[in-house]
């Protein structure tokens, strides 16, 4: 598997990581990459339960109110 290449700036750095991760997902079993992805997602889901953001505040942020 190709090593992660450092980027010249933030944009290139991010894009290099996207390429690296897509290659990782492609070459590893679903169970392996998903366990790593799930740490991120389950943590967001846990935080969401404790969020105090009201629908009104949220829709305002989204420009839908």
């Amino acid at each position, binding site marked *: 598997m190709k090593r992660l290449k450092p980027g010249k700036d933030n*944009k290139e750095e*991010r*894009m290099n*990581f*996207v*390429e690296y*991760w*897509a*290659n990782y*997902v*492609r070459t590893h*079993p*679903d*169970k392996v*990459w*998903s*366990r*790593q*992805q*799930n740490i*991120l*997602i*389950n943590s*967001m*889901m*846990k935080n*969401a*339960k404790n*969020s105090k*953001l*009201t*629908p009104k*505040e*949220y*829709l305002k942020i989204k420009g*839908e109110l």
Partner: protein
Amino acid sequence: MKFIDKKTIQIDKDINELDRLVIKFIRILEKHTIYVIVSGYVAILLGRSRTTEDVDIFIQELSKENFRKLYTDLQNSGFWCLNGENVAELYEYLIEGLAVRFALENQTIPNFEVKFARKLLDKESFNDTLTAITKIGKIRISSLERQIAFKRYFLKSDKDIEDASHIEKLFKKNIDNRRVYEYKKMIENEAAKTRKRQ
């Protein structure tokens, strides 16, 4: 993760809490209408290393009465609508082409951004859907070519371009670049029409 035929992707991933919520929501939706999931959650389902606060869903247009039944079913299953409780008003939003958002009761995020597919391009997303088979059920998503084109040529934010690149790199052998180009042209034509109307 692999294509088991042209229209079906098998994903043997460990299921996360967002996947569970999505499955819970679409099992209700599909009792009332046809749905297709588009945009960010599709990239996430396909392994992208990010999360999302909303899941974008097109549904086929419903009558007011049938929308009321869907709303009641969602409410009875523990969801609330962030835009309010007046069903007639929510239906008007949908008819105007706006989205209404549903989340688990007393939560704001993550939420489901539900829209009637009213524009031609949106309606066409039902014609070339893919089925993702997960350990806890099937999820209907829009085609990879459509995802790539919309994210790269319509939405265009850094996040969307990264999502498009992820899908392209992951499924390079399965992607029909002619179809991506056709979608690009359709998006450009639609944008030109909108500009003319303004």
